């Protein structure tokens, strides 16, 4: 470190910084005023900021797992009021808990799927997804027969009539992995695996870093890049805290096996709507369930087994079935 060369001399040292003069002071004041004005101008877009989501109550809202029953009731009340204010309907909103002895599993018969995308639309309607920008949890790939390479799949096929003879159809949605990379990477535990196997997101906790979106090998997660637009007359009023209540911009969302329905004994919207019965859903811990039977008796496979995510979403081909699509793959 250099030591001050002049410190040994007796002569008075000049101060390094310029002295305060009247002119300098005025100039400084003018500069400061100009700087503040420029800062104000730079910040001016903030006057259009939607503050309805920035209340103190929301700011202090705790993580789902830290909420006491009383606090959960308050949170539900607040969300009901929010929905009422934004969409003019009072929703039937509750926090449905997982059932004991239940682990949900999905099975999809590629031989039956005709690529009609009714599941996609039913899902959007059920789960209050944004219509603009469009958010869909299910992506159906039109695959050339003889290939299992997703890079050869067409995401945007548009045919007057499906299925096409030379293709088969592979719908993909969240695989609810038993070893989920998305949960592992989340820095703030905003997404986790429930006891019944469903991976959920606390929309009030997510900071929107999109690390989970980068981690997912199935491209199952969606981010709200803009404020979701949901027409008031299309709101599904049957809502769950961890599932389909309306989201705000800046947070992640994805398929949650319609847990507000499935935990109440109903089927997911995509299963219910499927016209050919390609989609099967149920409790794998119940040996009598259809999915348990399929896993036991059919040739099932999972997508990208090599990444070690252990999906709860199985594809299979029903050899005994000769429907409109026939066997593919």
């Amino acid at each position, binding site marked *: *470190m*250099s*030591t*001050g*060369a002049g*410190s040994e001399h007796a002569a*008075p*040292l000049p*101060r*390094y*910084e*310029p002295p305060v003069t009247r002119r300098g002071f005025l100039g400084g004041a003018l*500069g400061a005023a100009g700087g503040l004005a*420029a*800062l104000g101008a*730079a*910040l*001016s*877009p*903030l006057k*259009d900021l939607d503050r309805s989501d*920035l209340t103190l109550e929301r700011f202090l809202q*705790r*993580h789902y797992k*830290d909420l006491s029953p009383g606090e959960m009731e308050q949170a539900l009340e607040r969300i009901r009021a929010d929905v009422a204010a934004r969409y003019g309907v009072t929703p039937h909103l509750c926090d449905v808990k997982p059932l004991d002895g239940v682990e949900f599993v999905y099975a999809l018969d590629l031989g039956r799927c005709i690529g009609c995308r009714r599941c996609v639309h039913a899902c959007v309607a059920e789960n209050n997804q944004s219509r603009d*920008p469009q958010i869909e949890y299910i992506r159906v790939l039109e695959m050339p027969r003889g290939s299992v*390479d*997703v*890079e050869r*799949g067409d*995401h945007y096929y548009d045919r007057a009539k499906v299925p096409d003879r030379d293709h088969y159809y592979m719908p993909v949605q969240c695989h609810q992995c038993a070893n989920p*990379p998305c949960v*592992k*990477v*989340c*820095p*703030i*535990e905003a997404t986790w695996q429930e006891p019944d196997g469903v991976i959920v997101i606390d929309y009030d*906790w*997510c*900071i*929107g870093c*999109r*690390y989970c*979106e*980068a*981690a*997912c090998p*199935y*491209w199952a*997660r*969606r*981010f*709200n*890049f*803009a404020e979701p637009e949901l027409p008031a007359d299309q709101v599904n009023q049957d809502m769950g805290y961890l599932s389909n209540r309306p989201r705000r911009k*800046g947070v992640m969302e994805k398929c949650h096996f319609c847990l507000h329905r499935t935990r109440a004994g109903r089927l997911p919207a995509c299963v219910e709507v499927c016209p050919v019965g390609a989609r099967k859903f149920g409790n794998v811990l119940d040996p009598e369930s259809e999915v348990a039977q399929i896993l036991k008796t059919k040739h099932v496979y999972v997508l*990208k087994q090599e*990444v070690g*995510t252990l999906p709860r979403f199985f594809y299979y081909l029903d050899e005994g079935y000769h429907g409109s699509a026939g066997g593919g793959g």
Partner: protein
Amino acid sequence: MRDYLYFLWRCFRISFSGGWQYRLWMLILTVVALLGLNAYCKQLVHGMATTGMTDQVSWGLYIANFTFLVGMAAAAVMLVIPVYVYRNRDLHDLVVFGELFAVAAIVMCLLFVNVDLGRPDRFMHIFWRFNFPISMLTWDVVALGGYLVLNLHICGYLIYCSYRQQKPSRAFYIPFVFIAIVWAISIHTVTAFLYVGLGGRPFWNSAIIAPRFLASAFAAGPAFIILTLQVIGRATGYRISDQALSLLRGIVTVALSINMFLLLCELFTEFYSDSAHMASTIYLYFGLHGHSALVPWIWTAAAMNSLALLVLYTPYRQKRAVLNATCVLLIIGIWIEKGMGLIVPAFIPSPLGEIVEYQPTSNEILVCLGIWAAGLLLYTVFVRVSVPVLSGQCTADQVRRRGAERAAEAA
């Protein structure tokens, strides 16, 4: 305590005084930083839709710049190691400039992470539920935060000691210097692990990424310091020895050579094995199914880095002008290679085979420029203040003497 506050006040005053070039430079940086702030406010209001990012390419320029700057921050140790490990005293004062740059770079990193968040208002959530040690992002928060504190302490302590004209007590900073050396390597390694740990992204899922990160950082960082030291020398008359520059040049040469070697290893593995995992690499270098937005960029980077490496092995490297041009070339080359070339292609094609290209928007670019301007502004102020203090032109003694004079006049 009063002395320290007065020291800060004097630093504040000094940072506003300077020649016209200094004022102009500061004015330009301020204007660009404010433009960036303005663009960011628009992003806050309208959401991340103001960026070019999509569900397919969910990270872009922000994370690219973040990655590059973590490397720049880590590279400050390349000045520290010769001084403290090899006791090269000539570089002693220059270390402070390197570490101050590390501080500015980390601040830029934090800003880049923050603008990438969809809900920055919830940033506090990391204090309530911190997914440590499972999430690599939490490791990164710890690593970057720790590195910032370490460097602030070391620089702040050395500068304040110089101001007080005291000999710095070794116990107060030498242990921290050695911790900072290890820490610097760790910040960039942890940042690499952020990507490497994702099994679903074959482009990143390779052990060579972390060493490549370090090699490219230790080339670009010292190259940047070579340029800055000359600017500091020009603007302040602070003596920058040729020896310092040639040492840094040596580091750049070795690091860039290693970086090129690792890159070749990576490319060989990808292309020769011909695995299905190479789609992203093909997209980056040759384009995929008619999509080739990154191709011109990556070849420009490859050309710049190769040319820089070539020049560094010829005698022309001795010439300041040639050296400076080489440094500029390789900084830009590495920025492209590591930013656009390493972040974006991992998302193309998407895990479901979809090819969606990434095109940053002007708003997004403005935010990036604003953060760079803010970082350079911070660094300029650091240097502006530390030069007179380190060279003994601005000391606590002056204040004491003035006080004594006033007391004598009053009596």
